């Protein structure tokens, strides 16, 4: 192979494929051939055509699609479903489809030949649109058309060298072979960039994965990365584990339930917390988490709700029963509900789709309801790894995450099957306890990192007025809930009334006695006063008598002298 110049930092051509350009730090190597290989139906042609179409549509790189198999009309209709107007771009002279069809049936080989005709056709096509990108899909078809492999190999090598010389960014597709990347060993000729696409089915669930086998001049991971082909076309979903270096927020956000906020120092959760809501069936997990999301919407923030059990309409209807209408939030685009059955994708695919939805919607609150749904679809370690990635991803973006988890055995020491508790900042336990012939819901904050939270088991009530958490009623027979609580409360009320009545009667009696005594005291005092008055009168009379006597005696004396 002809030696190629090594520059400091190779130039790259963006593919416009979601996630792929980020993964490769810019796209495919400009001016060099890239081999895209994989089994049948794994998306090679789609990858190649997306690269070409985006080049023409967004990066001002005209392109040539060289099809060895599909007819141009088929290619045009294939990409039309992805929203590309290929015919329009052909008419504008930005794209060209060169269909190279060889029917081996009417072809005979006599003597030596080469593929100069192919070169001339490619050159003509390239010059016609001034192509900077070219797709060869798939050049291996030539091997079924021509019988002399020695000539073909020499010609293909010459072709790739020729493309490099022309400085055209090429994507060559190749079908996966036994023990080699491509059936005809095309990887021998393409040494700059090799991308392997894979489509595996495990447990009847298919997963598409992409791996960069080789990329000269670029540091790349060799992990398999899930990718998705859907109505938006081809998107690669890099799922990288993040460190624990994320920023933490001091900001508190309401849980949407006033009573719950008050259990958390009255302020609610920290923004960016991971909140686990676990409980048995029917304990109110979904309702609680939906009210978190609704609270975020009410505060003018976006919330994303992933449901693996319920449809959007069902969630809306159910939330209406507790007096919460999500419909306006959905209509205004603040609340997005994404429903998918766990078996719809593989774990990685779910992860990838979840991360993509989050990246696109950019919410501040994300609900996953329930994460336990995944346990059946993969082995616990994988589920744990997936959730770890989601938690890390949410934390890195300071998104509050609410995860519901269905447990089958109830108790205060429940351990989630997937060992989630260590990942979570807050763990809300919902209990459904039977007592006196009825089930009553209870809520308990098992942990809440960084807050001095209430340690009470609250009774969890859902009504048309929303969710309420009643403080525990601690009677003689322990904490009581539901009817037992009501009965116990009534009984205490009766006792209290009785006691009060007794006290009232007693104090009444005492009061009467006191009043009687007072009355007697008054009578005696009056008698005393009368006696005193009598005494005074007697003494006054005596005094007057004595005075009179003295006066009379003096009068007599004076009369004697005279």
């Amino acid at each position, binding site marked *: 192979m002809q030696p190629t110049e090594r520059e400091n930092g190779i130039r790259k051509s963006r593919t416009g494929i979601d996630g792929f350009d980020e993964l490769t730090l810019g796209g495919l190597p400009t001016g060099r051939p890239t081999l895209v290989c994989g089994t049948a139906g794994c998306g090679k042609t789609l990858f190649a055509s997306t690269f070409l179409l985006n080049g023409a549509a967004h990066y001002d790189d005209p392109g040539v699609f060289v099809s060895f198999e599909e007819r141009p009309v088929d290619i045009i209709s294939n990409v039309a479903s992805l929203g590309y107007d290929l015919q329009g771009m052909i008419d504008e002279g930005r794209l060209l489809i*060169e269909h*190279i*069809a*060889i029917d081996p049936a*009417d*072809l*005979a*080989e*006599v*003597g*030596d*030949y*080469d*593929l*100069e*005709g*192919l070169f*001339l*056709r490619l*050159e*003509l*096509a390239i010059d016609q649109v001034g192509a900077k990108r070219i797709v060869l899909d798939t050049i291996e078809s*030539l091997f079924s*058309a*021509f019988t002399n492999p020695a000539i073909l190999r020499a010609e293909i090598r010459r072709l790739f060298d020729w493309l490099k010389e022309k400085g055209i960014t090429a994507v060559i597709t190749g079908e996966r072979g036994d023990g080699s990347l491509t059936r005809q060993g095309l990887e021998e000729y393409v040494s700059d960039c090799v991308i392997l696409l894979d489509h595996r089915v495990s447990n009847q669930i298919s997963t598409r994965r992409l791996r960069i086998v080789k990329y000269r001049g670029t540091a790349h991971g060799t992990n398999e990365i899930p990718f998705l082909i859907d109505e938006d076309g081809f998107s690669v979903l890099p799922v990288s584990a993040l460190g624990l270096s994320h920023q933490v927020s001091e900001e508190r956000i309401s849980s949407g339930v006033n009573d719950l906020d008050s259990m958390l120092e009255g302020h609610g959760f920290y923004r960016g917390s991971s909140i686990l809501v676990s409980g048995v069936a029917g304990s109110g997990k979904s309702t609680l988490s939906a009210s978190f999301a609704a609270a975020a919407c009410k505060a003018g923030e976006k919330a994303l709700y992933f449901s693996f059990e319920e449809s959007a309409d069902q969630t809306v209807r159910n939330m209406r029963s507790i007096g919460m209408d999500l419909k306006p939030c959905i209509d205004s685009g603040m609340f997005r509900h994404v429903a998918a059955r766990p078996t719809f994708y593989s774990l990685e695919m779910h992860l990838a789709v979840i991360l993509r939805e989050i990246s696109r919607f950019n919410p501040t609150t994300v609900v996953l309801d329930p994460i336990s749904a995944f346990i059946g679809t993969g082995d616990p370690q994988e589920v744990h790894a997936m959730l770890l990635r989601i938690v890390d991803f949410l934390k890195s973006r300071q998104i509050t995450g609410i995860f519901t988890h269905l447990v089958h055995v109830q108790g205060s020491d429940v351990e989630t099957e997937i060992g989630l508790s260590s990942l979570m900042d807050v763990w809300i336990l919902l209990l459904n306890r039977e007592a006196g012939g009825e089930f009553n819901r209870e809520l308990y904050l098992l942990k809440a990192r960084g807050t001095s939270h209430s340690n009470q088991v609250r009774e969890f009530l859902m009504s048309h007025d929303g969710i309420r958490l009643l403080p525990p009623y601690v009677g003689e027979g322990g904490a009581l809930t539901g009817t037992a609580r009501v009965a116990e409360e009534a009984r205490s009320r009766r006792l209290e009334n009785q006691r009060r009545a007794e006290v009232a009667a007693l104090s009444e009696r005492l009061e009467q006695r006191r009043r009687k005594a007072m009355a007697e005291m008054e009578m005696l005092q009056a008698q005393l006063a009368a006696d005193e008055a009598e005494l005074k009168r007697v003494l006054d009379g005596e005094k007057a008598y004595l005075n009179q006597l003295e006066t009379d005696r003096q009068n007599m004396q004076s009369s004697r002298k005279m």
Partner: protein
Amino acid sequence: MTDMTDEPQQNTPTKLVLYVAGQTPKSMAAIRNLERICREKLPGRFAVEVIDLRQQPHLAREHGIVAIPTLVRELPTPIRKIIGDLSDSEKVLVHLSVGD
């Protein structure tokens, strides 16, 4: 473009087109070999046209030519294509189905 028409015989000659690309050894050999076959084995049966695709590359697209040299017999149908330098006269004749 060169015309190498032999003198006509009783029937109208079958038209053959030989696609070449420039003056490469393979192309030159094919032209030589075809001339020889026509002259020695089947004088007057064929009218041969040689097209240099280097001059007219759009004809390669129009006629679906990939390998060089390619000899095309368009009529009678089905279309027949022989690629290579035509070094084996017998094989060429077999593939042109001139035995019938």
